[in-house]
Structures are given as C-alpha cells and as structure tokens.
C-alpha cells in the first residue's frame, strides 16, 4: 500500500508537468486548429532560460532560495512567452490563410530548428541545472518519502491551472480567446482583434511550457537541447487523450499518462511503459473518439 501511494505521488508529479505542456498544445489547437509541434522545444528553452538566468538572479537573490526560484521561474516564463509570440509572428502568421498541412510542416521545421540551434548555442552535452530551490530534508509519513521538489511541482501546477482558469473564464482577453476558438470569423466581425488573441494564446501556452521546463529541471537536473522531444510527444498524447482543444481535458490527460506510465514501470516493466501508455490512448479513443472531455465535432458540410 505504501509502495502504491509512493508510486501514485511519483506519477502525479510527472503527470502534472506533462499537463502543463499539454495545455499549450490544446490552447493553440483550440484557436488555430493546428498542432504546434515546436511546443516541446519551448519547454526545453524554458529550462535553458532558467539555466542561464540562475547565476544572474543569484547576484540579487542568493540561490537556492524560494524568492530566487520564483524570480527565475517568472523570468523564464516571460522570455518564453515573448519567444512564443515571435515564433508565431515569423513562422505561422504568414501561413494563416494557407492549408493547415503547410503550417503543420512549418511547425516541425521550427521544432528541428530550435533543437539544432540549441545544440549549436548550448552544446550537445547534458548540463547540470543549478539548485535554485532549497532541498528540504525528506519528510517521512508512515513509510512514504515525500520529497519537497515533487510537492512543489504539484503546488505550482495547481496554482498555474487556477490562474489559467481565471484568465480564460473571467478576463476580457479570455472571453475573446473563447470567442475566437468558437468561430474566428464571427469573433472578428464582432470586433475581436484575432491577431492579438492568437499572439496572447501563444504567449500563455509558451509561458506554461517554460514553467514545466523549470519544474522538470528542478526534479531531473540534467538538461540538454533534445530534452523536449519525448515530454513534448507525451504531452501531445495527453492533450489528445483529454480531448484536444479542451483545457481541463489536457490537464486530466497529462495526469492520466503520468500515473499510468509510473504504475506500469513500477509494477509491470518499464520496457512496455510507452507501449501501454499508448494502448490506453487507443482504448480511450475507441470509446470516445474526441477524447475524454472533448466535444463531438460536427462536420460542417
């Protein structure tokens, strides 16, 4: 039982990072109906932004400290948000009126560009991510080892999810986002500036990916320019699983994939981990083709 609970915590921590990345995929899909395959690499850039910001931050806020960690997290979210906007402006906006396939291939191109530019500028060898958070002694509750980093991942994810929910549901720009996602032409006719909304969506999604990158690097402090590929892919699966275009669905999908993978590696065999996670995806899509929380798409003729 203790072992099961421990595995569950491991899975939740891993899954909530995937959930943060999955939100970016699903938001962009919701608005533009295309998969931004470069999203996993924004996650990688988030971790590297933290890597280079940490020594600079340490001159003002000595690291490791909670205040310093928040500054690093916030700044790299800001940098990645700006980067997301720039990528959208340069690579995707010129193709707005082109077939979706063109944009999709461009996204793959942007992804490869970021990965190899990363290898060129950061070097290919894995780097040690600095300790930006004080590591608290391991708390033991009835045989459970609670590690402060895992708890922080859960807490930060929860805070960001609530903040995102607030932005999307309660603010003016959030309402505009939902309007564009519902019908871009009608929203434009109603006076919504779709370009601003799309830029904002990219900024929001990229900031969440950067947060995921920092949380990931705190837990697994070895970062390299290709680190975004696998988590990006898994988060994409999570977004599809939860129903792409649906925000709570993406978070739920991330948690499901994370917990399934951890339980499979813990109890069956890590060799079949990915296979079983993808089998779960196929099973769910067989029963609910538009994902767990996805709405049925009505094909307009």
């Amino acid at each position, binding site marked *: 039982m203790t072992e099961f609970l421990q595995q569950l915590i491991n899975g939740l*921590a*891993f899954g909530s990072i995937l959930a943060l990345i999955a939100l970016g995929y699903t938001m962009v899909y919701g608005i533009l109906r295309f998969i931004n395959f470069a999203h996993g690499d924004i996650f990688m850039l988030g971790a590297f932004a933290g890597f280079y910001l940490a020594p600079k931050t340490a001159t003002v806020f000595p690291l490791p400290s909670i205040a310093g960690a928040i500054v690093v997290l916030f700044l790299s979210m800001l940098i990645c948000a700006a980067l997301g906007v720039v990528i959208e402006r340069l690579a995707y906006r010129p193709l707005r009126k082109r077939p979706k396939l063109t944009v999709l291939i461009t996204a793959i191109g942007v992804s490869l560009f970021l990965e190899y530019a990363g290898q060129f500028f950061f070097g290919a060898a*894995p780097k040690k991510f600095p300790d930006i958070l004080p590591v608290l002694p391991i708390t*033991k509750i009835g045989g459970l080892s609670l590690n402060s980093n895992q708890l922080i991942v859960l807490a930060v994810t929860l805070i960001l999810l609530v903040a995102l929910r607030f932005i999307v549901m309660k603010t003016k720009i959030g309402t505009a986002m939902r309007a564009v996602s519902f019908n871009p032409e009608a929203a434009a006719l109603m006076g919504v500036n779709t370009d601003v909304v799309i830029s904002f969506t990219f900024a929001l999604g990229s900031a969440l990916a950067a947060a995921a990158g920092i949380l990931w690097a705190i837990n697994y402090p*070895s970062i390299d320019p290709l680190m975004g590929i*696998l988590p990006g892919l898994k988060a994409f699966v999570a977004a599809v699983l939860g129903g792409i275009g649906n925000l709570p669905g993406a978070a739920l999908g991330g948690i499901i994939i994370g917990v399934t993978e951890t339980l499979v590696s813990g109890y069956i065999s890590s060799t079949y981990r990915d296979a079983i996670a993808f089998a779960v995806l196929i099973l769910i899509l067989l029963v609910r083709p538009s994902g767990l929380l996805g709405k049925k798409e009505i094909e307009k003729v």
Partner: protein
Amino acid sequence: MNTLRTSIILAAALATAGLLSGCNQSSSSSSAGSDCVKIGEFASLTGSEATFGQSSHRGTQLAIDELNAGGGLLGKKIQLITEDNQSQAGQSATVVRKLISSDHVVAMLGEVASSRSLEAAPICQQNKIPMISPSSTNPKVTETGEYIFRVCFIDPFQGTVMANFAHKTLKLQNVAVLKDVKSDYSLGLAKFFKEGVLANGGKIIAEENYSGGDKDFNAQLTAIKAANPDGIFVPGYYTEVGLIALQAKQLGITVPIFGGDGWESSSLVPIGGAALEGDYFSTHFSPQDTAPAVQSFVKSYQAKFNETPDAMAALGYDSAMMLADAIKKTGSTDCTKIRDALAAETDFAGVTGNITMDANRNASKPAVILEIKNGAFQYVETVAP
C-alpha cells in the same frame, strides 16, 4: 534458390569490397594518399555520449600527434580522419562507409558505445579493414570477425569483477539491478553480474529496467526500495546514473550504488552531486596510478588539453598506439598484414595496463575499481584478469 540468393549477395559483397577497399590499392588512390598513412576514426563527438567520444578522441589525437612528432610511421606522416556519428544509431554505418570508400583509410579506430561499434564492425569486416574499438566492452563486437579488435576488457570480466567486489569488499548479500534495456552494454554487464552474484551465493532480489534517455526513475527505485536490497547495481551510462543516484537519495535509499565504466565522465558528479558519495564503479584506468608510463601520459595530456585524462582518453590513446605498433611491425600498410600483427600483440605496454590479444581478439588486462569520494574518483583496487 536460397543458395543462389546467398551467392548473389556474396558476389555483390565481394565486388563492393573490392571496389571499396582502398587499402591494397593505395597506389591507385589520390596522390595525397601516398605520402601519409590514413587512419579513420568514428566517434560520438556530439550528442548524448559526447563526453565519452570527446575524451576518447583526444586520447587518440594525442597518440597520433606524438607519433607524428617522432617521425610518423614507415617514414610517412599519419593522417587521422575523424567523423562524428552524433551518438545516433545509423550514423556510424554511414560515416564508416565514407571513411573506407572515399578516404581509403588503412585501419579504423572507434567507438566507445558497443551498439555503435556493432554497427561499424560488419562493414570493416566486409571490407577487410582492421578495426580497433577503444572501449566497447560488449563481447559481440569482436565476434563479428577476424578484423575486429579491442584494447579494453569485456563485459563478462567487468560484470564478474563487480560481482566479486560486491561480495568480497562490500559484503553484500541481496542485490538489486537497474539496467538500461536500450543498451547492449548495459544488458551484457547486468547478465554477467547476475551470474557472478549467484555463483558467489548472493541473491538478486529486484531487477528493474529503464530506457536510455529517461529522466524519471522514481517508479523503478520505489519498487527496488520495497525489496530492501543491500546495494544496487546500475550498469548504465553517466547521463542517467547521476539522476538515478539523486532520485534514490530523495526516496530515502541509502545503500551503495555501483556500476561499470559507463559511469566515468566529468559530467557524472556535477549532476549527481553529493548523492553519489560512497558509490563505486569499475573502469580501465586511474590517473592516480604511479606507473611511469601512466604519469608521462597524464602529464602530456594535461599539457595539451588542460584536463586530467579519464579511462576513455587512455583507451583512445592505447588503441592508436597499438595500431601504430602493429603497422611498425608489419612494415607496410597492407590490411591483412596489419590484422595479423594486431592478432599477435602480446604484453603491449599500454597506459591502461599490459594488453595481450586473446584468440577472440579481446584484450586480456586488469581492471581498476574507483570510489566517488568528496566529488572525485578515488582509486580503490586493481583486479587482475
């Protein structure tokens, strides 16, 4: 039908070999080829195992530079042609074909990782180009054929050494194994370690897997912790080992973790940090060895690259030096003769110990065990074959 097809394939292979082997036809190749001895090297200079590849390459480069400073080979300069395989599967085959067919090298040096040496070995064998792997320890590498050699010991030996060390020095009874299912090296080492532990009367009480490139090992480590072992054997690469040690400590696992030469890298301690203290690994070489040959190698390596050589650098150095020794003895760049001279190497004095080629073209030589202490690798003991 089957024999017909086999013979067609064979004929095609022979024709290709004839076309590609620049070795025996060095006179017919470009004029630049005649005033230097060309040696090919394929290495993981970038990508996931880059620090290994870089070290090995520096050792090789140092050997070639020293040889050239001493007048080269057979009155000619040696030209080392290095190709990067980016630590990626499939790339080694491509770059090795290029080295053989367009650069006309007389011999091949490489690689660190067994899986990538296994890719290149059949191509060298087919083209009858002698290949020396500096540090691929999986037995299958030299089983490819009579043109494939290595200057390091093999997994059965290393696995047995660690099993004996766990039994005799660390006095462990119940051991857990956490291996990388994606790597031939890790699987081989785990297999021979398990056999050694069982032969010593110990028990393997948990066996878990991961895939190279993974970052989260909490699931496997939680399962291992539940089995309550005396020690954990992790025959993986440094890229994962640091994170494994870190997550093990975070889960409250305090037993020693130990592994093989895949651990040795200057990137290991920066990632694993204090979590690695008191852990052990077996390797080929220790710069703390007081033998004069070792100390002079360490000195010239430090002078050239401004860092202390690791085992990969020492093996890269030995692979080039042993090849040069064989070419010197042969007195020509004839591939078959170089191969015969390599096969006959006995007690070649390398910086990683005296190397003797056995009947299977594997090096028979000692291993050293190092402990991670205060963030540095400390020499513990040498184990003879």
